[in-house]
């Protein structure tokens, strides 16, 4: 009966509420969002008016939907540089199939979904099969789709845009679901904001409350360890790429419904903004850590900053500088909070 004292196990030590909050990945971005809101609200009264809020929630919402999907993928340890151009691919496919080839609208949507899901599958499959970094695989896909979007659009339309989408059958219903507005206190808000909230909740639930969510963290944290404990690494990764494509399909079709047209160059460069939003939201570039709510908050910060600069009346020539500085600050604050939280945990 040699009693070994187990009282000092640090894994069982009680952690205070404050510190437990601090280690949440989304906390840094929450603080950032509050700071940026207060900053611009104090500079412009239109920014904090109902119309102003409706305005900056709008770009945040479409970015946020993409950012949640991209965040899940990043937690799973991968990038998708083709996410931005897939938005265009989805919209252009729906537009061309209906307005040029007369396909039934709903079938065209299904075909465009199948197409981008196929792209997502291919991304994931190639990454898994070759073991090459997703950065390279999806960079190739990004360039290919960029060329394909332009080539096909030019070939079919002779111009660089697909237009007249408002004349297809079922446009009214599509518009109601994807691009209508709802009114709060006399101010119209884009319905995409509701979709954004829904996607954030769904993403968070998937990540934190399901077995698949555990797999995502496991795969992103340590791939070989995951394989050893029986996590289906390949299936999880491919599914994550396809989820990103699903989001791109949603946003691409939202865009063509809303603008009634779509440009061939749509989405180029946006893939980095999705990643930025996810990183502000606490995702690590190395995978295994991050949150869906954080990505949404990152999108919110981006939306508030891009519109806030206009509301504040700052010189437009400096726009990108302000934007970059804001984003850098948000990420640094995030990093600082997490470092502090992690050292104080011991």
């Amino acid at each position: 009966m040699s009693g070994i004292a187990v009282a000092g196990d640090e894994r069982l030590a009680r952690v205070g509420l404050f510190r437990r909050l601090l280690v949440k990945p989304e906390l840094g971005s929450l603080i950032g969002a509050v700071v940026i809101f207060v900053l611009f609200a104090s500079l412009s009264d239109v920014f904090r008016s109902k119309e102003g809020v409706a305005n900056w929630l709008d770009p945040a919402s479409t970015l946020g939907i993409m950012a949640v999907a991209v965040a899940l993928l990043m937690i799973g340890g991968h990038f998708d540089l083709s996410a931005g151009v897939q938005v265009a691919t989805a919209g252009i496919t729906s537009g061309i199939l209906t307005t040029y080839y007369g396909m039934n609208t709903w079938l065209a949507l299904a075909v465009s979904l199948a197409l981008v899901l196929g792209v997502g599958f291919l991304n994931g499959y190639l990454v898994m099969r070759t073991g090459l970094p997703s950065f390279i695989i999806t960079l190739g896909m990004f360039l290919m789709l960029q060329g394909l979007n332009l080539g096909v659009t030019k070939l079919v339309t002779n111009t660089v845009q697909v237009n007249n989408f408002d004349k297809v059958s079922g446009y009214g219903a599509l518009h109601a679901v994807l691009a209508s507005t709802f009114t709060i206190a006399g101010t119209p808000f884009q319905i995409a904001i509701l979709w954004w909230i829904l996607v954030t909740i769904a993403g968070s639930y998937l990540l934190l409350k399901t077995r698949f969510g555990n797999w995502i963290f496991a795969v992103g944290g340590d791939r070989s360890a995951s394989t050893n404990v029986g996590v289906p690494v390949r299936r999880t990764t491919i599914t994550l790429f396809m989820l990103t494509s699903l989001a791109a399909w949603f946003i691409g079709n939202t865009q063509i419904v809303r603008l009634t047209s779509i440009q061939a160059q749509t989405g180029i460069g946006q893939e980095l903004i999705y990643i930025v939003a996810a990183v502000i939201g606490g995702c690590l570039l190395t995978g295994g850590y991050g949150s869906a709510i954080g990505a949404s908050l990152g999108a919110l910060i981006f939306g508030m900053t891009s519109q806030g600069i206009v509301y504040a009346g700052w010189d437009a020539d400096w726009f990108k500088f302000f934007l970059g500085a804001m984003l850098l600050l948000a990420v640094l604050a995030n990093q600082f909070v997490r470092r502090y939280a992690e050292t104080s945990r011991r």
Partner: protein
Amino acid sequence: MARMRAWTLAGALLPALALVACSSGNAVNKQTSTTAAGGSGKYGYKIAVVTHGAAGDAFWSIVKAGVQKGASDMGDNVSYESDGDPQKQAQLIDAAVNQKVDGLVVSMANPDALKGSIQRAISAGIPVITINSGQDKSKEFGALTHVGSNETLAGTAVGNQLKAAGVKNVVCVIHEAGNVALEQRCAAVKAALGGTTTNLQVDNNNLPAAGSTIKAKLQADKAVDGVVTLGGQVATVAAQAITDAGSPAKLATFDLNADVAKAVQSGKILFAVDQQPYLQGYLPVVMLTLYKANLNVLGGGQPVLTGPTLVTKDNAAQIEKLAAAGTR
């Protein structure tokens, strides 16, 4: 594996399904007939067109359409290549010179970077016509002539028109940061208008967000009574932003597409100014052909201006059809 096979089957079935469903009235954009008239000369000259236009840019795709029509009308053998990077553009020119082309068409967004290559072409006996930008340096480098529009002239036209419509406070929407031509347009609008002009930067690759930014500006500054956009695709979202913001601002735009022509007809856009990019592609091919065959030079080598022309309510209906076909 069984599931995999099911997916493959579904993939194979989809196109078949799609064909079955292709008969509804959804094909609103289907073109009835695009057989354009035009001659087919048998000159057979080898002409290289090297521009700085980004692939996918609405403007340059119309220039390219003009080039191709010029080539088929003249019966020339014309290649079109472009690269936004001045050094790569210079390399494309060098490659054309090495192939001993009969004529060269170059847009000079950055003349100094192209100087060496263009002079190599000229000393190799290849006639050069510059297009679109670089008018100031065209003669100096030894080019035959320059075909283009003058941004300042176009901006002045827009400014004067807006002034006549009673507009005093304009927002000029720039969709490509650092593009000299766009800055020149805004500056010329400002000079001609005489009132207030402020520049606003938006992202060309995320048009819904660009719309939100324009709306934010209109909400923040109620004194704005005019919006000028510098590309057709931005004009469409600007029109929506003006409506959404409940702003009385009048909208004018540079450059054209079918949606802009439609919006001009409905009055959402006051007018559009077009520099006729088609001519910037078509004319140089014809001019080089005539120079090679007959030593013709137009106007003693003076710059040939392709614009500005105004698209207003009066002519927008006709132009809409041409814009949809990608030639205006």
